[in-house]
């Protein structure tokens, strides 16, 4: 009986702009009428109804769908699963040159828990970065030679060097990053945003997930919970857009029927459903008719979305030849741009393979090369198209890596390090060409963590803030509690990195 998701998905503010575009199509048939009816009805819903229908967490009397004006309307999140080494990417530490080979002193380690991988290790010798850093752009940001293309976006990005987290192993750490909780059971960031903002698109989901093909045999797995909606209604879970098989599961009709034939099938279904509704009066049937209409549209919009053949050659100059290979990071970054152009709110990209416990100097460059050009191209592309202004891009892993060696010799690795690591953000109200926070000489602790450290919850609070939400008020009542992404303790958006 509840006109659940579609309404949810369509009622949101962004749709108003989109609706014009939407009505530009010639509408015919019952399905189209059902969809239109739903849109019109949705826009007249009052605030209280929205709140009770899982709309954003309005405080009474608060106008508008967000708590305050948003700087960003959408997010692209480039998750570097496995955790890149900050020492070898974005945290330039000349101090380590002098400390190279020295034992990590207990005064610096301060009883930090070790993982099971190095807890048996007797010696913890510091390894300086194996790669050179140089300065780029007007801002003169230091970026390592592992990521040369990032030099071109040095003035767009804000590097946060004082990130820290609570978990030290992959599963709990990435779950914490994405859902605000180490154990399974909470909605992920993308689901919260879908819940809070709904969709701008009538023929694509609000929250799309892209998985880069994995090349590293030892890579850490991913799990459905990372894009799951947990106790939020499941229409807020991420929809995977796949590079193999159907881009959206079961999207394609096995008979390769013509558009007209498919249209007739959908129309016939709508007519029969309509008859049933007249018999029983169930409004859910109307919603189902509209859902099928959306499905019909997706069958056309998704192939159009994933077909990059219409992109000019300059696009591939920017993203690199990889962008023509579905499933590469470059191809997915390009797809992300095409998704946000079409009104998708949240695009989550996962790149795996950074977890180098052995031979990090040999393996880190391979993974860095896989992501460098695509990530950098995305920022440049968004900027050229005027989308960077209100599109927030986030790049980072679930924790950092140790300054000391795991194993010895030249083929050493670096272990997990939750106490400090670097991520970058760009666009969507972020102060580009800047950095925030710093690590100590050993690249082991954050300097002034109380004031300058950025906890995972702080980062998520910042992302929500840029989208117009007070992270303490974007909540959902489940089992008697008002749950939120950022937990119960005090956390804050990092306003210093906002332009």
């Amino acid at each position, binding site marked *: *009986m509840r006109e659940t998701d579609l309404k949810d998905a369509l009622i949101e503010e962004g749709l108003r702009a989109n609706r014009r575009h939407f009505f530009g199509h010639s509408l015919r048939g019952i399905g189209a009428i059902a969809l239109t009816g739903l849109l019109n009805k949705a826009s007249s819903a009052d605030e209280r109804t929205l709140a009770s229908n899982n709309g954003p967490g309005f405080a009474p009397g608060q106008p508008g769908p967000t708590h305050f004006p948003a700087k960003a309307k959408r997010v692209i999140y480039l998750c570097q699963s496995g955790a890149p080494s900050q020492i070898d990417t974005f945290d330039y530490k000349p101090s380590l040159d002098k400390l190279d080979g020295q034992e990590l002193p207990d005064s610096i380690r301060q009883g930090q828990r070790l993982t099971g991988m190095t807890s048996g290790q007797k010696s913890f010798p510091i390894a300086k970065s194996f790669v050179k850093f140089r300065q780029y752009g007007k801002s003169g940001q230091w970026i390592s030679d592992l990521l040369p293309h990032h030099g071109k976006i040095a003035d767009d990005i804000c590097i946060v060097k004082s990130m820290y987290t609570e978990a030290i192993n992959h599963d709990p750490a990435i779950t914490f990053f994405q859902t605000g909780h180490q154990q399974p059971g909470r909605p992920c960031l993308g689901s919260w945003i879908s819940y809070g903002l709904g969709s701008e698109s009538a023929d694509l989901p609000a929250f799309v997930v892209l998985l880069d093909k994995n090349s590293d045999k030892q890579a850490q797995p991913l799990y459905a919970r990372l894009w799951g909606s947990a106790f939020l209604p499941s229409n807020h879970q991420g929809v995977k857009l796949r590079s193999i098989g159907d881009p959206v599961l079961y999207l394609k009709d096995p008979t390769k029927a013509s558009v007209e034939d498919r249209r007739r099938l959908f129309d016939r279904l709508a007519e*029969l459903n309509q008859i049933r509704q007249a018999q029983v009066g169930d409004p859910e049937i109307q919603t189902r008719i509209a859902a099928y209409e959306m499905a019909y549209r997706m069958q056309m919009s998704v192939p159009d979305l994933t077909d990059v053949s219409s992109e000019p050659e300059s696009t591939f100059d920017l993203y690199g030849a990889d962008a023509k290979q579905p499933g590469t990071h470059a191809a997915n970054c390009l797809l992300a741009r095409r998704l946000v152009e079409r009104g998708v709110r949240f695009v989550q990209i996962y790149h795996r393979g950074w977890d180098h416990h052995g031979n990090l100097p040999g393996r880190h460059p391979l993974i860095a090369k896989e992501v460098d050009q695509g990530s950098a191209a995305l920022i440049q592309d968004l900027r050229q198209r005027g989308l960077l202004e209100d599109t927030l891009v986030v790049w980072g892993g679930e924790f950092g890596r140790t300054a000391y060696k795991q194993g010895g010799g030249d083929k050493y690795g670096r272990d997990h390090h939750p106490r400090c690591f670097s991520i970058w953000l760009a666009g969507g109200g972020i102060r580009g060409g800047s950095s925030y926070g710093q690590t100590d000489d050993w690249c082991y602790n954050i300097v002034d963590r109380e004031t300058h450290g950025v906890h995972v919850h702080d980062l998520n609070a910042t992302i929500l803030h840029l989208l117009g939400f007070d992270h303490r008020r974007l909540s959902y009542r489940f089992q008697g509690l008002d749950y939120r992404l950022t937990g119960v303790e005090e956390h804050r958006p990092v306003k210093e990195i906002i332009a």
Partner: protein
Amino acid sequence: MFLLRAAIFSTIVFWSYSAFAEVDYGRDIRPILANHCYACHGPDAAQRKADLRLDHRDVAVESAIVPGAAEKSLLIERISSDDPDKIMPPPDASKNKPLRKEQIELLRQWIDAGAPFADHWSFVVPKRPALPQVKEPRWTQQPIDRLVWARHQHERISANAAAGRRTLIRRLSLDLIGLPPSIEEADDFVKDKSDDAYETVIDRLLASTHYGEHRARFWLDAARYADTNGYQYDLEREQWVWRDWVIHAFNSNMPFDQFTMEQLAGDLLPNATDHQRLATAFNRNHPITIEGGVIDEEYRTEYVIDRVVTTSKVWLGLTIGCARCHDHKYDPISQREFYQFFAYFNQVPEQGLRGFNPKLKIASPLQNKQRTAAKASVVQLEKRLERLLNDTGVNFADWEDRARAAAKQTWHSTTPEDVRSLGGATLIRQEDGSILASGKNPATDVYEYEWMPAGRVVAVRIEALTDASFVGGGTGRAPNANFVLSEFEVLSADNKNGPFKKIELSTAVADYSQNGYPVEQAIDGKFGRQGWAVDGNTKRENRSAYFVLKAPVEVSAAVRLKIRVVHEWGGSHQIGRFRISYSDKPTVSLPTRLRQLVSVPTEQRSGTETVQLTMALAKAYGNDKMKALVTDWNSSAALLESVTAVPATMVMSELPKPRKTHVLHRGQYDQPGEEVEADIPQAFPTLPQDTPQNRLALARWITSVKNPLTARVTVNRIWQQIFGIGMVETSGDFGTQGAFPSHPELLDWLAVDFMESGWDVKALLKQIVLSQTYRQSSSVTPEQLARDPTNRWLARGPRLRLDAEAIRDSAIAVSALLQRDVGGPSVFPYHPSGLWQEINNRPGYSRVYKQDTGGKLYRRSLYTFWKRTVPPPSMAAFDAPEREYCVVRRSRTNTPLQAFVLLNDPQYVEAARHLGERMFQHAKTDRERVIYGFQAALARRPQESEIKLFLETLAERRDQYRNNEQQAIDLLSVGESSVAEGNLAERAAWATIGRIFLNLSEFITKG
């Protein structure tokens, strides 16, 4: 806490607990106080401000409330103040929610009425309420109806008429067994004019074996059942025998208190049976990590917490988990009490990392029948053979001597002149004459072993011996301790320098061979990835094989023999320690098992071994009749073994010496505080303390009739299964923040009745579906929708989208593909390729989804293999959870992705084809065929307008497929089942008609 308890049980002022009261403390007042005030003035002592608590009347009336005088009460003064420094809650929009005018007015009225407090309704033991007098005869039959009718009267809403029989039987069948009725079942019901026609259908459905499957389906969500371990690598586990237990328990209508007791503490029951122990797998179904870096205690703690959270949610409807890090903000559960509850589940001898033990191998209760039959057949054959042996006067001792003589085979030891590894391993001779490999461990290797025999050589034997230096103390050098002997060669040379020539071998005999790796492959002249292997990865035992030379080698001073032990499987599958010996007498071909059995001294033989020896001897030396009997016996015994062969299931057990439990500061495993003993929260009535405080005591408390929650929570969840929403909408939270029941008296009436019936689940269901409330039409008018959008007043019958499993099962059922076997291991139906590998392709830690074939594609959905990190995609689209944690209520959404599943998932396209074929075959005219389709898919007859649309579609599709045969072939070739003979265009047109049926909103709706 002590204070609070005293307050609740000594100074309760009972206020009416009713859906109709003007101002009800529990329904109206407490939620306001809890939502807006408890954060600082509630149960959490650490956060409490100004020593004021509003959850506690004695404290509240000391300062904030003057009963009977709202205007004199500080509470009212503060919440209605204009002064920003005084107003409560303090105006910090990010933390506090201000009160609305109507809320303030309610508080005023309540205080004026004397500010009566009451214990939270669900914490008071339910009493059977008086039933209202009802005037309308239709609503007097069932207690449920009388209570529902009263609500109708109060809301001044008129109830729907009863639904038609076809609607009713479809609803009933979907609710009781999760499958739609067959055409015959529906017709029979329509034709049955007897008074108890409806009840007959109910009884038939409750007796169906599919009943237990359907109830188990719901239970699996609550029990977070899955076929994988969850967390990071999410590899497989086998807990399905427990799922069989659940199906069996429901089908045999096990009383719910027993069902509870066995799952929570079956192992602790006096004289616990195997199946009672098996039941405790419930609390081992949680995820288990194998991530290398974790700390054992960290995850062990998580597992215990999972049990606390799951148990309290499923049986008590309490969010006890909230008190893991601090006192509960709303309910009377302190952090200390959380860890007291934790202590009950903290006594399992388990680990955090790879914590799969304890496990027990217990046969499925569903296989009882098969097992009994196989056992009977074995016994009968044994008796027949015994009679035959007696009748023929066989001298058994003679046979045994013959076998013993044959088994006597002397193997002479050898001393090598030279032994080497071509792969570079170090081979060192041990004191016992064996050769131990160490050092370099190449992927493949060949050992060469030369010696000078002291006598005639008829056969050569190699023994593979276990050694502590190999993984798990096995026999092989592979990482899993197995080996594969690709080839065993014997060569001879006539003199010291002479060239070695290969000697032909005639037979190979091993004491054990791995399935697919028989010892014959070691002398077949073929190298590479085949040969003799011994399951060395699981069975770490000494093994031997001997090889008979085609022609014996006669001894002479200069003869040298060389053995080549060739390992080419790869992955270091080499024998790690071996010994070579030879025999100078002809070997007698004696079955390996018989050889083993006769070598056991008579007095040491077990009963089983004696039977086996009898059989082996009769087979070897008996007459044809005896041999035939033994053959039959062997197959019966094999069947018995196969129905008894089940995986070990993870179950609960108790440490011999209890583990200490501490309050964990902030819920952290490594921050233990005060030590605590197991106990239940103080706010609830306790049981006598004369039994040890263990899980059994907890289970007894949970199933006690004095427990105010268990029966209510259970009844409510079953109500939710039928009506879509429980009387308490928050079916997982009956605490103070949970929803107030829509029909409090009805909930209590059913809860009391449930307990008094002996916790009879079938009786409860029968009572619900017999009611007029259930039998109403579910049609809805705009006016009804406006007044009661979610049918909380129950003035119409239930109407909801089916759950994921019921949708898939319905499609398979109406297409007559459904495979109806009950129980057994999980199956792998259709699945988009690459889904598992795209999120995890780490070698050794991942696998490819291997789709089943044949009947396993069409089993009920509760048997579908459930991988937590990639839940079955076509069910996930319909709101099925991941099963990483306990879920008692699924969301119910309506999305375009669901349309894709029904339209294009091969499971549905294939089902549509078969449904179309059924229609086509059933009748001669298209019209009759369409009518048949309505009956099969929707259990009703169509309207003319509907028939017309189908016939039009049919005509269009015939044209389409006639003009484009390839499309017809594309459609018909989806799915594994074979395509019916005949006109392709015609078949495809009917398949499309089938697709339309499966995609109708009505098909996936219980109406």
